[in-house]
């Protein structure tokens, strides 16, 4: 007789499911302003506590508090607010266009706008992001990326800069520091480390920023990236966007239960922070801190951004099948746009009237861009890149066999 009970397989479960509320206490939130801000040359091992706490600047009344509350220029905050609003409006309109079958597919970043937008505004020009499909805010925060062109990509029309080859949202903007998005998860995370190593090899001053979701951290590429970043002290920011869900699987299935994704970094010898991703000021301050470390040859920083995927995974998904329909309303870190708006009004740098006016103006801007983009065609009206272009860019110069195949197609 054995003294042991039979072994059991443990499979994590979220507390909330359709019809049953989520108990968000698993998030372990720190009060705003409570978490210390070490000097940028801190030792990675000394960030252990920061990987379990939560860096927050905005408190519930919209005040900026604590050591991470930098004296941020209200001008920049207004810019950030507008960019977040623009991103949300953009997403909402594109979702409608997808429902109207003008595009085949769409992915929104509802509820996560602060992360990409504040991050973009905290980086320097020349830095290179290796994003996932949910960082459209990196592009929409910039003045030099034309929304019309982005929408042409989404519509797969004759002005699609990806020549019709990529699913909607799989943008590529080298000139705007935005690496080509792959449909394969996690592959870009290690590539960002390589880009950063290259900058170090060449004695550059530019840094890289790697992006991954909570779910995709399970891929080997994520762990490999941490090892390489640590070994070579690569000038890279390793962003983990923990929006609690990976399609239908809760973040515990990715290994978030009883620990944090930030803790992965410390375990690999990388300075790590866990940050309120719905707090524009915290995102901006933490990004600046990590960028400063990278630029001073102090090596990589891993940042886990805690947020919530408020919408469906994509236009092919129906989250009401696997999580409570009103989950986002109970998510304790709120709505990033509402929180920054409250802060700006509290410091006298914004008003309800300005907000309303900005909303109208941005809606008109996005609508005008969409109208113009649609004048170049949509997926369904036949105005798309020619079939002949399908054979280009497989190689630099088209080999004989592709020429023959193109001829066979008769285009």
């Amino acid at each position, binding site marked *: 007789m054995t003294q042991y009970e039979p072994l059991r397989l443990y*499979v994590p*479960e979220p507390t909330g499911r359709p019809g049953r509320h989520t108990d968000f206490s698993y998030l372990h939130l720190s009060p705003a302003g409570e978490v210390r801000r070490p000097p940028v040359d801190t030792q990675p091992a000394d960030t252990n506590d920061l990987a379990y706490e939560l860096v927050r600047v905005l408190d519930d009344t919209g005040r900026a508090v604590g050591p991470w509350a930098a004296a941020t220029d209200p001008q920049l905050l207004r810019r950030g607010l507008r960019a977040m609003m623009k991103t949300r409006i953009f997403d909402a309109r594109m979702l409608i266009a997808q429902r109207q079958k003008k595009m085949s597919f769409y992915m929104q970043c509802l509820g996560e706008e602060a992360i990409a937008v504040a991050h973009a505004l905290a980086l320097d020009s020349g830095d290179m992001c290796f994003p996932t499909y949910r960082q459209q805010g990196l592009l929409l925060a910039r003045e030099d990326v034309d929304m019309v062109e982005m929408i042409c990509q989404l519509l797969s029309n004759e002005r699609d800069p990806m020549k019709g*080859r990529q699913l909607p949202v799989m943008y590529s903007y080298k000139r705007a520091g935005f690496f080509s998005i792959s449909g394969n998860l996690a592959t870009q995370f290690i590539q960002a480390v390589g880009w950063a190593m290259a900058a170090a090899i060449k004695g550059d001053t530019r840094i890289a920023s790697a992006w991954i979701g909570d*779910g995709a951290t399970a891929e080997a590429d994520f762990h490999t990236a941490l090892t390489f970043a640590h070994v070579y002290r690569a000038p890279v920011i390793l962003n983990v966007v923990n929006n609690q869900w990976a399609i239908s699987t809760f973040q515990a299935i990715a290994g978030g239960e009883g620990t944090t994704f930030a803790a992965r970094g410390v375990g690999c010898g990388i300075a790590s922070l866990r940050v309120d991703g719905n707090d524009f000021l915290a995102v901006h301050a933490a990004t600046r801190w990590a960028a400063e470390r990278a630029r001073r040859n102090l090596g990589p920083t891993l940042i886990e951004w805690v947020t919530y995927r408020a919408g469906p995974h994509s236009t092919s998904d129906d989250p009401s099948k696997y999580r409570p329909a009103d989950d986002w309303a109970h998510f304790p870190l709120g709505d990033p746009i509402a929180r920054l708006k409250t802060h700006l009004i509290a410091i006298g740098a914004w008003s309800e009237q300005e907000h309303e006016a900005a909303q109208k103006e941005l809606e008109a801007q996005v609508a005008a861009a969409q109208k113009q983009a649609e004048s170049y065609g949509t997926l369904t009206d036949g105005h*798309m890149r020619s079939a002949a272009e399908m054979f280009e860019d497989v190689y630099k110069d088209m080999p004989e066999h592709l020429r023959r195949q193109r001829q066979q197609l008769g285009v």
Partner: protein
Amino acid sequence: MTPKTTPMTMIQALRSAMDVMLARDPNVVVYGQDVGFFGGVFRCTEGLQAKYGKSRVFDAPISEGGIVGTAVGMGAYGLRPVVEIQFADYFYPASDQIVSEAARLRYRSAGDFTAPITIRMPCGGGIYGGQTHSQSPEALFTHVCGLRTVMPSNPYDAKGLLIAAIECDDPVIFLEPKRLYNGPFDGHHDKPVVPWSKHPLGEVPEGHYTVPLESASVFRPGSELTVITYGTMVFVSEAAAIETGIDAEIIDLRSIWPLDLDTLVNSVKKTGRCVVVHEATRTSGFGAELTALVQEHCFYHLEAPIERVAGWDTPYPHAQEWAYFPGPARVGAAFKRAMEK
């Protein structure tokens, strides 16, 4: 006594196969990304977790290497894991576990350990999925010794083959043409899809049965020309036969490798003409192997060069999907070329 049948989509047929095997064999476990509570992004495992519990049907982290690696370990213990890779386009992180481990475990341990695992993955295009939701990587698997590669074209075969795959002691790569999940798509993308409920192969027995591995089916008998194909291209070839009026005999391989050589050799010997059709890219595609086999075994019976119809040698495009997809027009043109000579 004829078994009771029910109209099923391919999704329901696959689910039924897993249901039957979970009930019959306590060593069967089913897991993969989103397959547990939700039931899979294509719904193939819907309801199975509720029925068999979380230690038999469960969600996996997003790590294809981890999914296949753990399956190999469970197989070594004595389980029969049935794992899902969400899209065939995402199996690459599992390549080492499939190629170096699962495929060779029996050989390297002289039969001491085996990998009786089934790796399901939706494949093929036609859903505007772009380059990462459309690939047909079967030739990458057939090139690996020790793997069995299977691709059903209809609900009846899907269920029978999946049960055979789960019962098989070798690792089986089970490719599911996702464009056929809901109906026999024939390449006419601008016409409404016929549902499986309107097709005889959508009538599926409710209980246990198998479609043996290494057995092809003569999907459509004919006398003028032999078409060797599998998956979505079976129906595209059928449409091409109807539209060209050429009396083509369509062989649905079902098991791509190892395959049923006799059925295809007998057919080519009878018709004297052969067209090989697949959706995957042409160069070094499985069509090259099929062409070589027909040449080796039927050379003196051939009256015309073997024709190959395949996807172009480019990544799967998004907007130009229908210019890429080898539809009935391209297949029919190859039929005509094969008949002219």
